[in-house]
């Protein structure tokens, strides 16, 4: 008997291992011409795991604090063996993870996978996307360079525009009236403790829901397959789909490695609160569509401050986005066309505004 078999038997004897993994064996993935979109969630999860691993390694050398943060990242980039690789992978992986999370969300939207009974899967997924953006926002400040400093200043200032709770929220985020070392310590705490904790719990919930509810089939196909069950085509999750997912992860790893080796993440110049902000400062690309929108809103719309209106509008859109599945029909044959239209508009808006924001001076 092989040692692996021995371990499995040992586990089975004590915890009923075979019963535990039985659902995985039974799990099947629908097979159709859009099945490859199912890989996106797994890739996002893989990138999250990369983030956790590289993040832990960075923690070995990173020191939060206005007088040490930049120097410690500089030390990681220049002195620590493979430090440049770990930090570059962490930064590139963060950006790729946000990209794949967005792509995953839009694929779910276009394939209408958010419909009953998967409303909570959608809700947990959208909250995860917000958390991932929170990771991006908090992590961006940690190297304490000029761009990060001023981007955080602008970002937290926008938070301060929210009526009633804005100012206290901004002070809470900054740890005072201004962006200082206190903000850095705070953001570090959010980045390495609060957000990972919340995200891990939500990922588990998200995966549990996916496991429990199975993988969604596009509505048209669902109708066809219900009418003609013999047309139904599936692939076993284990090992067939998982092996393909593993291939996707390897491709993602190759892309990450290539990006990190050819374009190591720039360190920039140490933040100096006493110099003026660099001209044309912009946030990271995933906040650019919101930033550009706020820039385009006139200073005053009717009697409301333009920026306040923009922030409120984004808050409302985020809430409606979160509750989107509840506007959808629960009949596969009667899906709401306007939601697909809205999804197309949202995608075009986010992409268009991001490009515009990138090109704008």
């Amino acid at each position, binding site marked *: 008997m092989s040692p692996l078999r021995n371990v499995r038997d040992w586990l089975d004897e004590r915890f009923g291992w075979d019963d535990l993994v039985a659902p995985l064996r039974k799990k099947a993935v629908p097979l159709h011409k859009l099945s490859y979109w199912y890989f996106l969630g797994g890739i996002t999860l893989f990138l999250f795991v990369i983030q956790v691993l590289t993040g832990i390694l960075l923690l070995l050398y990173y020191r939060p604090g206005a007088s040490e943060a930049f120097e410690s990242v*500089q030390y990681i*980039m*220049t002195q620590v063996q493979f430090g*440049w*690789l770990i930090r*570059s992978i962490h930064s590139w992986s963060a950006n790729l993870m946000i990209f794949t999370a967005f792509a995953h969300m839009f694929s779910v939207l276009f394939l209408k996978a958010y419909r009953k009974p998967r409303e909570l899967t959608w809700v947990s997924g959208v909250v995860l996307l917000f958390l991932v953006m929170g990771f991006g926002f908090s992590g961006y400040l940690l190297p304490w360079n000029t761009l990060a400093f001023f981007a955080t200043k602008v970002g937290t200032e926008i938070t301060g525009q929210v009526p009633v709770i804005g100012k206290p929220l901004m002070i809470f985020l900054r740890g005072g009236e201004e962006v200082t070392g206190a903000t850095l310590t705070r953001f570090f705490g959010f980045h390495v403790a609060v957000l990972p904790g919340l995200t891990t719990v939500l990922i588990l919930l998200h995966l549990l829901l996916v496991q429990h509810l199975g993988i969604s089939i596009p509505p048209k196909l669902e109708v066809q397959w219900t009418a003609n069950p013999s047309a139904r085509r599936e692939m076993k999750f284990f*090992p*067939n789909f998982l*092996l*393909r997912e*593993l*291939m996707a992860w*390897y*491709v993602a*790893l*190759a892309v990450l*490695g*290539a990006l990190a*080796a*050819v*374009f*190591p*993440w*720039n*360190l920039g110049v140490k933040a100096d609160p006493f110099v003026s902000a660099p001209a044309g400062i912009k946030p990271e690309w995933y906040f650019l569509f919101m930033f550009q929108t706020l820039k385009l809103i006139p200073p005053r719309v009717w009697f409301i401050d333009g920026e306040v209106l923009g922030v409120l509008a984004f808050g409302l859109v985020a809430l409606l986005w979160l509750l989107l599945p509840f506007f959808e029909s629960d009949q596969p044959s009667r899906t709401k066309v306007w939601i697909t239209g809205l999804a197309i508009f949202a995608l075009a808006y986010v992409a268009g505004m991001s490009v515009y924001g990138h090109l704008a001076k």
Partner: protein
Amino acid sequence: MAILRNKLRPFGVTCYVALAGFFVLAASTAYGQTPNSCLDCHAALPDPLGVSQEKFSQDIHGQKGLTCASCHGGDPTSNDPDKAMSRKAGWKGKIDRRQIPQLCGSCHSDPAYIRQFNPSLRTDQLDQYRTSVHGRRFAAGDTKVAVCTDCHSVHDLRAPSDLRSTVNPVNVATTCARCHSDAAYMKAYSIPTDQLAKYSTSVHHEALTVRGDLSAPTCTTCHGNHGAAPPGVDRVQNVCSNCHTFQAQMYEKSSHKKAFEGASLPGCVVCHSNHGIGHPSDAYLGTGPEAVCKRCHTPGDKCDQARAGLQSGLNRLDEAIKGADRILGVAESSGMEVSEARLGQDQARASLTKARVTIHSFRPDLVDQDIQAGLKLAAKDLQAGNEAMVERNHRRVGLGISLIAIGIVLAGLWLYIKKIETY
């Protein structure tokens, strides 16, 4: 409370308070203002008699509460022109040009009077003026030379800190040039009239107007303002040393100082010129068109050899810095972190600057010390750049090997999938 409210009659009280406020406001606005009836008529007159209220309100004297009568005399409180401009009331009419310095000095040389308006304002302008070329000629009866109002203007005279002032640092050169660039006006004085044209091409003018450095020299910085005069051949280095301290210290101890003094040559100006002073260049030490040493030294002599050594040293350091910059630039564009070497480059550049300053000692051994220090730094930075490039190449080789390994794993996985799906 209701009774009290009725008795107070809120509307009535508001009216009384508003009326009282109006009187207080009117009284406070009128307080301190001296009637100035002159402007009632002169605002409507053509130049040179025309002075509008708007123009005079820009004048620092007007802003400080002085009126036309402060200089011209008369009674500005009277609306009757005959009374306002009567000799009895002390009216002086148009101020005679010969009286202007004395008239201005009657206030500006009185510390007790000036202190009321600006305690830090100097009161030696008239004394200084008397020592200036302008003042001395003026005293000798030449009324063509500049008096106070020629430079400071009149009736709309602004504080020098005001950018619109004719004596603001950025406007001084143009103000001086109004006379000094006018060949016809200056004909009798036999001095050049190309100062502004030359100054406009100078490094000082560039610093003042392009970089906006208000401490950069303009005419008055070297010549003085109220006491304006040429620095004098033997005093040139004293003028330049006000800003170029290190160069001056080295020049003071150099062999050139004695030699220039002996030949009555004007120090710094011999090599750098005066109004049209350009960006100093290492080519000054060469043999080309910009060369300055060859103007006095014979090719091949001991000093000429030293000159060649100095130039070659500076060029060597300059090239070494540029070489290190190039490799660091490539490494940086490849994403390599070379900020420490960049810092070293700044130090190397500082050594080059120091060597260029040390040139003013005319001692090759001292200059060589700075050059060697810079070369050492540049060599270290070049090595850092080369190491960064080697590291970059290692990374790329590592990436290639990793990609091959990942490719093999992917192929293996694909074959395995095919295998399990075939059965």
